[in-house]
């Protein structure tokens, strides 16, 4: 229990993600090169709804370009953490993104500061077509300036980029989003978030209600996007094994507190941790 620290993470810990080379698919070292270990810095975050305090003082940092997984049982406060980052839940403490305070912002302000939150349940605009959903994602890009030809070309290029990541969405571009399958809707939600090249991508339970194969495909895309576009990602996930596969670091939440933080690979490989904190049976953890 010495390496994955319990309780608060020392600020230094995230500076050197210290990801051991693990065989196979998870050679995730590039984030370690980041010069900005505190790109997203959460300190002393208390948050909740009304008088209900869900988060009891959270401290962690995410380096630029890193994928960070937040794990933990139901009701631990994972979703609330994301909601506090995107302005959907109030709180006190401090959350800075590239030095800018996020707490106390409305969701639209947070979005304008580069936070892209894909909520649990995806938040698809069901009445709109797939392409219109994506254009809404590009809204921020086009809303700022007078839309000239160059701007429209840029949006088209962005659409192409997203279709490149999610070829299935291209096939369905004229279809109403409400008619998509769950997996496609999740892809659309992520695509809608990515089209604006967010500084920080927040994913809430992307695997919820999806078939295992679809989930795996989705996580591979997230990993690819992270590698290609250097998007910083915070992902909340019930399926700990999946999340640990694509994450550089992971934090385990319990009853509103961090109980465990460390490099994702370490947590994944430690059978004891996996079983005690994440409910992953020992025999399952090598399977991926």
């Amino acid at each position: 229990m010495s390496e994955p620290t319990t309780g608060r993470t020392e600020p230094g810990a995230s500076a050197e993600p210290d990801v051991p080379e693990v065989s196979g698919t998870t050679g995730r070292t590039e984030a370690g090169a980041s010069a900005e270990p505190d790109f997203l810095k959460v300190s002393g975050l208390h948050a909740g709804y009304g008088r209900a305090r869900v988060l009891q003082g959270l401290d962690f940092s995410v380096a630029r370009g890193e994928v960070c997984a937040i794990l933990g049982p139901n009701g631990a406060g994972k979703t609330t953490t994301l909601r506090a980052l995107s302005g959907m839940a109030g709180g006190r403490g401090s959350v800075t993104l590239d030095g800018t305070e996020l707490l106390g912002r409305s969701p639209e302000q947070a979005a304008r500061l580069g936070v892209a939150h894909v909520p649990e349940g995806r938040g698809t605009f069901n009445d709109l077509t797939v392409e219109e959903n994506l254009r809404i994602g590009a809204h921020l890009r086009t809303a700022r300036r007078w839309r000239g030809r160059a701007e429209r070309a840029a949006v088209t290029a962005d659409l192409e980029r997203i279709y490149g990541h999610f070829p299935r969405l291209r096939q369905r571009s004229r279809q109403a989003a409400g008619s998509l399958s769950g997996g496609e809707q999740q892809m659309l939600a992520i695509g809608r978030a990515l089209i604006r090249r967010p500084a920080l991508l927040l994913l809430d339970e992307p695997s919820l209600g999806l078939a295992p194969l679809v989930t795996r495909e989705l996580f591979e895309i997230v990993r690819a996007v992270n590698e290609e576009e250097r998007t910083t990602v915070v992902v909340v996930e019930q399926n700990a094994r999946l999340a640990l596969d694509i994450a550089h670091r992971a934090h385990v939440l319990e009853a509103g507190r961090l109980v465990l933080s460390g490099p994702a690979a370490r947590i994944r490989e430690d059978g004891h941790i996996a079983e005690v904190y994440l409910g992953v049976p020992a025999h399952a953890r090598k399977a991926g």
Partner: protein
Amino acid sequence: MSAVTDLLQQVVEGLGSGAVYASLALALVLIHRFTGIVNFAQGELAMLSTYVAWQLVASGMPFWLALPVTLAVSFAGGMLVERIVIRPVQGAPELTVVIVTVGLFIFVNALAGLIWSFTVKDFPRQFPDGGLDLAGVRVDWSTLGILGVVAVVMGLLYLLFQHTSSGLVMRAVACNPSSARLSGIRVGRVLMLGWGLAATVGAVSGVLVAPVLFLEPNMMGGVLIYAFAAATLGGFDSPVGAVVGGLIVGVAETLTGAYVDVIGADLKVGVPLMIILAVLLVRPQGLFGRAAVVRA
């Protein structure tokens, strides 16, 4: 005049009044799409707009100049109403919001009486007298004009919603406001736009109906009931439904008034009640509505 031409004559007249109901119903549906509430003050706001037009014309402005000015004033007024009256109760239970719109209804009605008194005013006719004679059926220019205006309004709304990025943003907000927020859309501003738009569309209905009904503060009360029936019939979430519903209600009203002796001209106002009850019993979501949306 044969029975058939007589019937057709009634249908044409029904379409004329139906177009007015359609435009007010359109305003109701717009607000309902955006906020999920029914704005009971919609008719009164339209009445207020009509008074603005009347005042402009009375002070010497030509009608076709007064109209765009009125529409602009209505747009601004609708946005103000959203910001001042509706925003504070946004997110409150439906009952609270409905009561607020009823309060607005009473207030605007009385305000118009306070400013312009309750005496009936003659509103200038926008369309020339006379009309076409189509195989014995007389179609007034005013009927054609009203239908034309409503068609143009429909067309403009269609263009706005389907072919502009502002329209896309508005549809997104109507569809999923919290997601829109997460996409960086300033939902409050979009809602203001929606109310402004609805007030403008409503103003069109007021200006169209004023020469027929004569202008007075209670002018739109009856029209509102018909518009409610139209929106219920078409489905409260469907702009197309509002227009189709409006036309059907207009025709049904004229036909029952003309052919059902028990009802006659004086009891025509019972027609919307019957239509609403019938729709609720047979097809509660309306002709173009979606069942899932209607059940709260």
